[in-house]
């Protein structure tokens, strides 16, 4: 357990200090949303119509792009070897890294989302749904991502492969996340998207860390 917290703390320190994940993600998020606003042009009704899609898509891309580094940096400089040997349970290690990833991407997105949504003219009644769906959905992105990152570690075309593997797994989250916001815009109070997102999160929590840990073991061999 102390190992878990030590790893979590270290991950956060490193990503705040040099790898700069938090700031990168927020910047990426804001930039991507700004670019869309420019690209689509200033028509209000079109912008608000696509706001939820843009926020959710950017969230996915941001999560996906930072995932490549989840294990790769530690793999390349020998740290992963040492972590596996440190006597900390691999599952605890994966959990710590995944939580750190979520804190530095998912959480960052949660903070930036209202601002971006405002820039994109999201109707006021949809903010609650946006935040709840992000809160339920982004941890699943990190958990699934950990599995993908572990599976593709050391692979010949790590980057593409990871995208290729994660895209299909992320699509349901995107669909239900955007659906929740859409529903709120239209005033349809539907609990189905939340139920699905919650269910996916629970499933991911119970399955992903173990899968990723076993994939990591194989990666080091």
């Amino acid at each position: 357990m102390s190992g878990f917290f030590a790893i979590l703390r270290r991950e956060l320190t490193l990503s705040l200090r040099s790898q700069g994940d938090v700031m990168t993600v927020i910047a990426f998020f804001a930039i991507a949303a700004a670019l869309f606003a420019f690209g689509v042009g200033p028509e209000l009704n079109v912008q608000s119509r696509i706001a939820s899609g843009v926020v959710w898509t950017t969230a996915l891309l941001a999560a996906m792009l930072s995932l490549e580094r989840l294990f790769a940096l530690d793999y390349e400089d020998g740290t992963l070897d040492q972590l596996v040997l440190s006597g900390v349970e691999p599952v605890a290690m994966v959990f710590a890294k995944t939580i750190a990833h979520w804190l530095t991407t998912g959480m960052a997105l949660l903070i930036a989302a209202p601002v971006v949504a405002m820039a994109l003219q999201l109707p006021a009644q949809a903010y609650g749904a946006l935040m709840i769906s992000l809160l339920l959905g982004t941890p699943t992105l990190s958990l699934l991502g950990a599995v993908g990152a572990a599976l593709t570690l050391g692979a010949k075309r790590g980057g593409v492969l990871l995208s290729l593997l994660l895209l299909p797994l992320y699509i349901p989250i995107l669909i239900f996340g955007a659906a929740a916001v859409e529903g709120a815009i239209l005033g349809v109070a539907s609990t189905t998207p939340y139920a699905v997102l919650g269910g996916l999160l629970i499933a991911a929590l119970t399955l992903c860390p173990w899968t990723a840990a076993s994939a990591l073991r194989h990666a080091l061999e």
Partner: protein
Amino acid sequence: MSGPVFNTAEFSGARLNCQRGGRMVLTNLSFRIASGEAMVLRGPNGSGKTTLLRLMAGLARASSGALTWNGDDISEDLSAHGARLGFAGHLDAVKSAQTVRENLFFWASLRGARASDVERAMATFGLSHLADITARVLSAGQRHRVALARVALSNAPLWLLDEPTNTLDDAALNALRNTLSAHLHRGGMIVMASHGDSLLPQARTLDVRQTQPASAAA
């Protein structure tokens, strides 16, 4: 780093075979090492020293053969095996963004070592004056010393060192020699890959290329 004496133990491998990328790297290799003993792995570049060290650490898996600690197969509990060894490979596992002290303190906290152990290990390897410098600016030798200090503070009985003398100056070589002898005196074990001076006159030599008949093990 003097400390409590380790329980007597025995670490051995029997008829190990290992292939990498379809090529046989280690064939029918056996060894045995007991508390207080040191073994130096020798062989030309690419002969399999690093591979054998990774097998011993449980980081890689042999195609056939068994590695046992006190008679128990290490693959039964790899986490426990990891906890009883300190490993310094070709890669230093030093994070550039952290200071030397932060780097070592992280590993110490995973291993249950205390802050005073970190200070002691830094002093041993002449790193005390660099403690608060980010590792990014370390010279090659200084960085390698950090990796050795990590092993020194691990408080693990089995040390696996891959060419530990690379990039070290004379002072660091001396520090390493003393640390290794102290470790053996406490009843530790050392397996070390080396091309040149092994630092340990008392160490046995294992040529990794040599195919040993099963009976020659031990």
